[in-house]
């Protein structure tokens, strides 16, 4: 691999910049609340927020009020949660597996979620009692369990360098699991879908924040914070894993337990996000690399920086997806890939030049 995880010299960014974090997040959420499909004047937006937050009692149109508070604000906050969660999952997996291409969907989670969603919506599994989100979550969990079992079976072979071997086994098992579940999805669609139905599913698979309401925030916000706390709690272990599982073991870290716990918790965070908004690519892959370039590889800084950048990136991508084509909302996965792929290319080139 030409891109290593630890060698880029970070820009000199001091801790006293940290106070900017809440400000940047606040600005991003405000932008997400004020920019949308239709234009609503800024003063209306402030009045609605004032009414909701401290009962200011301004007279505003009820539809405007509902759009701002129930559609846009909840959507911006959940976009932030998803961005943070996916970026953190990327940080953890890249560190644990020592693979720069690791991303949250490596573990077959997005493929499994697709299969679950398609099984519910197209094949009619659960006969209407199971929602699309629940189906996606169950599918993601199932795929993850299968990948872990497969990795475990493959990684318990003989040979030296157990830690390195296990990381390789997880990646290969993830690829196999993803292929299997993608094939299952294609099978279900081919067997029972007409073009109109498949279209709705494809839209969802590229990520879709249009159905987000406060109920989703109540699930997404705790999930993102739990993910952040788990990562911060294990920041030293993550540093150690960057140098390999064997080095981590020599530092007295219970490798199997910590690695298993970290992977499972990130899989859970990813599955929760995917079940609500679909599979949004590139956030988990690109953000950790970009942040490593800016703040360095120490997880004390990398974890909070990635969470913040992921949140702001996804809120921004969601805004672009709503305004780039007038009168139409693009799947957000299209926007993240369009922005993320060139950004990733720049990071790759600059990363190799630095050395």
């Amino acid at each position, binding site marked *: 691999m030409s891109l290593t995880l630890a060698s880029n010299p970070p820009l000199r960014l001091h801790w006293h910049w940290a106070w900017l974090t809440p400000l940047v997040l606040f600005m991003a959420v405000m932008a997400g609340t004020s920019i*949308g*499909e239709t234009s609503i004047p800024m003063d209306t937006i402030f009045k609605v927020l004032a009414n909701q937050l401290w009962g200011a009692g301004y007279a505003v149109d009820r539809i405007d009020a509902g759009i701002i508070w129930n559609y846009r604000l909840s959507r911006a906050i959940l976009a932030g949660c998803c961005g943070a969660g996916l970026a953190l999952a990327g940080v953890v997996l890249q560190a644990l597996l020592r693979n720069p291409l690791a991303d949250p969907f490596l573990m077959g989670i997005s493929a499994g979620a697709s299969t679950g969603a398609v099984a519910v919506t197209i094949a009619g599994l659960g006969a209407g009692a199971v929602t699309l989100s629940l189906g996606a979550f169950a599918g993601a969990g199932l795929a993850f369990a299968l990948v872990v079992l497969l990795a475990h079976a493959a990684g318990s072979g003989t040979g030296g360098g157990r830690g390195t071997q296990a990381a390789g086994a997880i990646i290969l098992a993830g690829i196999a699991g993803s292929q299997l579940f993608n094939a299952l999805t294609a099978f279900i669609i081919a067997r*029972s879908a007409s073009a109109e139905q498949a*279209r709705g599913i494809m839209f969802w698979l590229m990520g879709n924040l*249009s159905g987000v309401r406060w109920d989703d925030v109540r699930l997404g916000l705790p999930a993102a914070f739990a993910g952040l706390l788990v990562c911060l709690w294990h920041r030293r272990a993550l540093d150690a894993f960057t140098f390999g599982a064997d080095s981590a073991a020599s530092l007295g870290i219970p490798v199997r337990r910590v690695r298993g716990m970290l992977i499972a918790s990130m899989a859970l965070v990813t599955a929760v996000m995917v079940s609500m908004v679909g599979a949004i690519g590139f956030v988990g892959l690109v953000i950790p690399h970009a942040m490593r370039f800016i703040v360095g590889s120490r997880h004390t800084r990398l974890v909070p920086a990635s969470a913040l950048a992921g949140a702001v990136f996804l809120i921004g991508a969601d805004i672009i997806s*709503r305004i780039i084509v007038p009168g*139409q909302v693009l799947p957000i996965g299209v926007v993240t890939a369009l922005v993320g792929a060139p950004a990733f290319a720049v990071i790759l080139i600059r990363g190799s030049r630095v050395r």
Partner: protein
Amino acid sequence: MMKYSRPLLAFLALFPTSFAVANSTEYPLEITNCGMEIRFESAPDSTVTAGQSATETLYALGLSDRVSGTSVWFNPVLPEFSEVDANIERLAENDPSFESVVNKRPELVAAQYEWHVGPTGSVASRDQFHELGIATYIMPADCDTKDNTTGGDGTRIDAFSPEHVYKGITELAAIFDVQEAGEALVADLAAREASAIAQAEALELPQDLSAVFWFSSPDQSADPYVAGRLGAPGYMMDALGIDNVIQSDEEWPNVGWESIARADPDIIVVAHMDRRRFPADDIENKLAFLHNDPVAREMSAVREGRIIEMDAHAMSATLRTIFGLEALSESLSTLSFAP
């Protein structure tokens, strides 16, 4: 087109332009169908259909004995045809395979949509059938004013009108040499169309009425699929003097509730369907969303109870469009538009 002239035109449509009595088809018959020259040496003895509208049009022309297989069903067959349909093999509920169609040795494949039989048809291209000596016919409602290469379900380049349905009926009647049945069917549908329009005009509805047609949504509260301005629902609204709040040329564009709520339509027409792929396919879920969503429930149509239910298949560009027009006209008479 000026609005008052519609009933007149519909009335004129009762009479064939030549005022000739229905005559028999002279073979070979050559027709340009969806940009392709097709030629018939005689009336086809056996036909396979891909698309419910093609199937039901043939049934309505009394040609069920010439249909040897059907496919691509969206809804139960129209009740008046349930008996004849029961005796005809369904090759597939959805897309049939090329070989299953060919295996029936049809002389004609009649399709409702180009996405099944067309340039990139999921069943086959038209040429693939023509190479085997099997003729193809696509319902003109899907191609005369529609570009099927863009947009999720195609994009209208010009407004749909029942004329395109009538053209399909007339051409199929000519192909099968049952022109009398074709003229009778067109006359019946055109009369129903004219009477639905006249009935709505008698209501003297407010001038600036607006509406949205909600088909379904990919998830319960996600951005819905609504009718564009040029498809069958666009025609219905136009014919009855109602503005569509959706200005897209796409057949079923995906539009956010934010845009719809801000446009605040006077009437919401919700699709009733048997399909159960998305939660919002169920009309109860649609109504529950409209009454509970914090934004949707504030729309005038919801607050004033101006929600109309309509059969989903009537919203597609088929002969059932006329039934949809009748249902809409009928429902309008039950609504109150007092300010």
